[in-house]
């Protein structure tokens, strides 16, 4: 909402959101600065200098390499949705609050909106598209259907990925552990009762040999 040219308004600094948009979605207070020197530390994380313009990167997604050319400020979520047409992960809160963009990276559930695509190189990324390949529903997805753990469904892919990562580490979860383990995902329609049941049941099913 803020921009530099307004006059007569209250003094403004750099907001957290503006900063985040600058590095991620562009357009914030640092958006332009980011095209210069600010881009370098981020590129350095990948071991070389890249940017400010589009740079070639390779992402390892669902077992396959994908080559794409993106600006260093492009997030993993933006890369998935807008460059690779993998739209299961959703953009909701814009920045690390809601978990709708959850993917599994190097075995951990992460918010794809809060990771730069360039930094996701060299790590195995699993998205919801890779979970039920071949048309057969993954046990977690199937449990979400059975327990009606979804209404509008916009948060569901993120929840399913978070649940999968959670069950991988907690094969015998209690309801209380599910509530803690999935506390990083928000649903607006209010499907939590179904989600709790679905995760407990999916964990049982996955032990029973349905593990994908």
């Amino acid at each position, binding site marked *: 909402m803020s*921009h530099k040219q307004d006059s007569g308004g209250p003094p403004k600094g750099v907001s957290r959101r503006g900063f985040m948009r600058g590095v991620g979605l*562009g357009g914030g207070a640092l958006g332009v600065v980011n095209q210069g020197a600010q881009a370098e530390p981020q590129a350095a994380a990948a071991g070389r200098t890249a940017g400010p313009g589009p740079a070639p990167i390779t992402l390892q997604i669902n077992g396959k390499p994908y080559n794409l050319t993106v600006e260093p400020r492009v997030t993993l979520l933006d890369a998935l949705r807008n460059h690779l047409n993998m739209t299961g992960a959703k953009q909701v809160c814009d920045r690390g609050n809601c978990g709708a963009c959850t993917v599994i990276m190097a075995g951990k559930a992460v918010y794809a909106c809060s990771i730069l695509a360039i930094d996701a190189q060299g790590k195995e990324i699993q998205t919801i598209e890779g979970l039920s390949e071949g048309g057969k529903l993954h046990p977690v*997805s199937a449990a979400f259907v059975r327990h009606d753990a979804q209404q509008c469904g916009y948060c569901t892919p993120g929840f399913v990925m978070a649940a999968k990562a959670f069950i991988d580490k907690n094969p015998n979860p209690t309801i209380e552990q599910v509530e803690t383990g999935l506390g990083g995902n928000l649903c607006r329609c209010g499907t939590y009762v179904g989600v709790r049941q679905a995760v407990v049941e999916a964990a049982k099913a996955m032990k029973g040999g349905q593990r994908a």
Partner: protein
Amino acid sequence: MPEYSWPPVEKRKLIGKRISRIDGPDKSSGRAKYGSDISRPGLLHGAILTCPHAHARVTSIDTSAAEKTPGVTAVRVISGPGTECQWAGTEVAAVAATSEQIAWDALRKIKVQYEVLPHFVDDEDLPKAGARAKPAGEQLTGDPEKAFREAEVTFEGYYGIPVLTHACHEPHGQVIMWKGDRIDFWCTTQNVSGIGGDLATSLKVPATNVHVHQDHMGGGFGSKFSAERWGVVGAELSKASGGRPVKLFLDRATELTIAGCRPSAYARIKLAARKDGVITGWESQSWSTGGFTGGGAPPIPYVFTEIPNQKKNHTAVSVNAQAARAWRAPNHQQACYLTQCAMDDLAAKLNMDPLELFMKNCDLTGRPDVYRAQFQKAAELSDWKRLWHPRGDSGSGHVKRGLGLACHTWGGAGHASQCRTKIHPDGSVEIELGSQDLGTGTRTVIAMVAAESLGLPVNAVKVKIGESDYPPSGASGGSTTVGGVSSSTRKSTLNALAKLFEVVAPALGATPDQLEAVDSRIRVKGNPAKALTWQAACRKLGARTIMEMGENNPRNPGGLNTGGVGGVQVADVSVDTETGLVKVNKIVAVQDCGLIINPKTAESQCLGAIIFAGICGALYEERIMDQQTGRVVNSSYDFYKLAGIGDVGQIVVHLNMEPEHDKRGVVGLGEPPAIGGITAIANAVANAIGVRVTNVPLTPDRVLAALERRNA
């Protein structure tokens, strides 16, 4: 003409069964495509620049630098010089570019000069509102002065319930492509059949040029009916970019600032009563804001509308903020909260169990028997008799447990809806409606009704919704969808089946009226051996496809759907009096809702409503305005709080499914259970800690402040 009615309970094969939603696998595997997931060749990304001031006049706007930015294909001014912006977040300009990043970069290069004007955003402090307050005038019933003069007991209280936002997870926006005479509009809307016409009117093109598409949508809750400024400007950007598709969705801060909110409500309420708890008089001074345009009067006294003596004064307060939109059961949560917190406080003053007081006043409602039975059921399911205690009498530990209750009402009769059924010679069936599934399970309900009518399994019918080329069906608001689409689908499928019977009857040596469709067979009633399989029957159509319509006319629903329901909710909470944290242990919801097509998704509606509106509204959600800048302070999920999975406790849903409910026909369920929860929780907290926290949400600071007042 077939006779249109629901099959008798004992003959139903699908209706009333717990069927998993048919689009569930698509959603839980990430395959479901929402408007915001749509990509088309040459897709451009749009972004909107909004006004940072709560009240300002645009004096100049210079887009030249933005236009010159490489990758930018079009720039549009929405609020040109001279435009008065009445709230922060007013749309000022928009760009389309080859990437989201370039679009945001370009926005920042647009130079806007504003003349900043005075603003007002405080909706609670009525005396401060001055000319921004518009009294609606006094409403009188009976003789309230006499009622209060002669009352055995009176009570006076103050209550407040704030503005909150819709916070749809899929933000508002669209992908749109305007090429030549054709506009393709991939939406996120509650109004598939109506939004195209709305856009066409704004663009001054024939409605026939607009083609709306929507497979799935990520939440609306009453905020997604119209084409909006961003739809119009998106179309213009597409046209100006040579017809390339433009994707423009609001970022979260803008979504929470301008894309939907609920009116607030504040009131001083006086009750007159007899010593036995029967209410004899009501007096209220209430006010609320529905944003800059004001509005949003809560219907008080709520449910207990027959209080014989009433004096009411309501004032609409205009603030510099977005206009309110319908928020799941518009004005009902507010009315329920104002009315029934006061009733609960009256019970406390009389040292009465509020359950007893509410029961005693059921004769002041429109459906006394329904509510009495529901109060009894809710008391049983919540273990009220054992767990309830007089207010504040909650033991010596610092965690206090309490119970509270509330009741509510809603309409929910079916909207206008048309359905087209096609039966093809190969036996496949298509059901087409210009409707939408908000996540309520509409698609599944349509499939179940169609399959039930045709004697087929659910997966044998293909439900096609979400296209404006399909027969028009009403917008999904007011819990009108399930009644509308189930009735039109029932009629349309029965009409199509009658045509099939006409074709098949000679082969079975019977007349069409002697046939029935059961278990994927067309058979002679009373002689099931004389039958054809569905496939064999349809082959008799030769090359002809049956196509028949069915319509729900809200003025004459013919017994298939109706409206008017009651519900009761009880909350069981624990309050930590050292931290002020409120924890929901259990919510019990007893709900009347007519004939239930799918108990599984019906229960989900109740569960969702209780969490979305009850728990979130009672404990977490509130739009906070900064008085100095006039902006929304908490326009992010960091500070605009929603309940998480660990915040909801146990939820028990009891749907009234007795024959007397079933025979009423279908009634909508999205809204009624979204009403009473806030009040039940607030009353439970008062019961636990012995003092009323006047304003929701019941955040720790408010709980602690109330405790301090009690101890002072």
